[in-house]
């Protein structure tokens, strides 16, 4: 029993790390531009599929490096030509636009790569169990958690200490002033969007290694990321991280005791959090 619980706890952490990676990207975009990027899950799927296509040529490690960058590049293009037109308009419109994009990406990946999940070759070094007692501790799982942790730390370092990061944080508070101080906000928002999509692409490559990748992977992961953001509080990146880990662990543990409530439990947590703190755990009055 303890082993089962440990297994699910660990599994929950992995799932939570996914949610957090995806939700952090979403949060980043939303904080600076007020855009809810419904197509975020679509970009995640694209990251996975690009890696799948690249692996025969550049190997797993190469794909892990290249695929998220390519995904981010697609994100830059989408922001430049579509989303940029909608800044300053009712948020309804960017919501609908990215919603349509999500449809297009999901259907497009189905058209190109087929409706079935595609298998994925992970280096053998990563797939062997590390311990016979704790069979679930495969190298790949540890690797995923480690990589997710490194990415999150890197993100916070970028935001805290680089010029780009400082500008993003400042823009989140008051974009107009940042603009007046001589920062090109068009480029700032573009790069910020790309950074968010990079995280989605990375999560996509990692998820594909664990679960395989199929066209609907994006639409099934987008809701948990929304819940992570709401639980953590809109506008707070640490909150988003905590929210993702919390609901990942909670739904994984629920699957042991009450399997049919696996998905529902995260919404129950969300309802409870909103009841006590209407703006989420770390949310503050103000922008949202």
């Amino acid at each position: 029993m303890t082993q089962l619980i440990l297994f699910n706890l660990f599994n929950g952490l992995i799932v939570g790390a996914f949610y957090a990676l995806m939700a952090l990207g979403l949060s980043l975009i939303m904080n600076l531009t007020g855009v809810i990027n419904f197509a975020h899950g679509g970009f995640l799927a694209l990251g996975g599929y690009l890696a799948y296509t690249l692996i025969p040529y550049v190997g797993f490690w190469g794909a892990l490096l290249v695929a998220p960058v390519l995904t981010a590049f697609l994100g830059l293009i989408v922001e430049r030509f579509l989303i940029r037109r909608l800044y300053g308009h009712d948020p309804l419109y960017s919501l609908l636009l990215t919603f349509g994009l999500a449809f297009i990406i999901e259907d497009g990946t189905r058209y190109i790569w087929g409706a079935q999940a595609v298998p994925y070759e992970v280096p053998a070094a990563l797939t062997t169990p590390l311990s016979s007692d704790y069979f679930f501790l495969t190298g790949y799982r540890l690797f995923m958690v480690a990589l997710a942790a490194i990415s999150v730390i890197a993100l916070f370092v970028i935001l805290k200490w680089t010029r780009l990061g400082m500008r993003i944080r400042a823009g989140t508070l008051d974009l107009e002033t940042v603009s007046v101080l001589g920062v090109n906000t068009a480029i700032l928002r573009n790069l910020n969007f790309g950074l968010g999509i990079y995280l989605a692409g990375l999560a996509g490559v990692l998820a594909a290694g664990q679960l395989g990748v199929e066209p609907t992977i994006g639409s099934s992961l987008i809701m948990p990321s929304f819940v992570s953001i709401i639980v953590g509080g809109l506008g707070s990146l640490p909150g988003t991280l905590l929210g993702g880990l919390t609901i990942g662990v909670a739904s994984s543990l629920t699957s042991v005791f009450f399997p049919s409530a696996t998905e529902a439990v995260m919404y129950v947590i969300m309802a409870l959090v909103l009841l006590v703190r209407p703006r989420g755990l770390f949310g503050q009055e103000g922008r949202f």
Partner: protein
Amino acid sequence: MTNNGSLTRYAPSVIGWIVLVSLPEWINAVGYTDLGSRVVILGLAAMALNFLLGHTGVLSFGHAAYFGLGAYGAGLTLRYLAPSTGLAILVGTGIGTFAAMLIGPLIIRLRGVYFAMVTIAFGQIFYFIAFRWNTVTGGDDGLTNWTRQPINLGFATIDLKDPVAFYYLTLVVFAVATAIMAKLLASPFGRSLLAIRENERRALFLGIPVNLRIWLSWTVSCGFVSIAGAMYALLNNFVDPRALHWSQSGTFVIMAVLGGMRSFWGPLIGSAIYVVLQDYLSSRTSNWMSLVGLVFVLVVLFFPRGVLGMLGRRSAT
């Protein structure tokens, strides 16, 4: 002059009603009456959403949940409770409205994108309940083994098996629902909603209890959406979890935008365009989902005011 004014004012609605009432006459090619019913039902749903979206200015992206609750309420009633179409509509509407009332207090303090996100996320609870509770709801396969029943009025019995008869029932429900919505919007309550849409802070200063009004508007809006959901279940004699899915919510929003959010009848026109387009596309290609997505993108980029919004601007200039 006044005569002329009232003519241009009422002519569109009169023509609209003539089109709706005579629809089975000219659309009677096999199967297309049901398409008409679908336009009217989804149009009602989009108009109900627009009560909140266009007239109160609150961005909800989770109305499919209450649509689906109405649908499941109706289906479950006919399957397990009693063979009565009237009761099915009442139960479906009751369940949807009640759920909205309960969830309302959790969300009315939020605004804008925050409100949108929380409404989407809450909607998914019901999706997973319908999806997982196999023994009662049929899970992913949907709720089957029930059909809409004849309505007994005492002096006459209406057999709803006939698509035309069902279309007229739909139209009656639609007429009553839209009449109530129009009355509400014209009342002081409705005016206060418009005030909240235009300037929430000013409305607050005027002493309007903004959160309470938004809660009421939300409940009314979800209530009418659940009526539409109940009718939709009766139309198909079937419900499945997709009726509750967030992508369905997006469909209602695009209908409202496509027809014109700022007008009362706009969403109905949006529904007609969307339903016909989707029906046509899905019969022509298996990649209709991308094309529907493309419609979303094009509407947002080139047509954000919707059909009636564009016409209104043209006649104003």
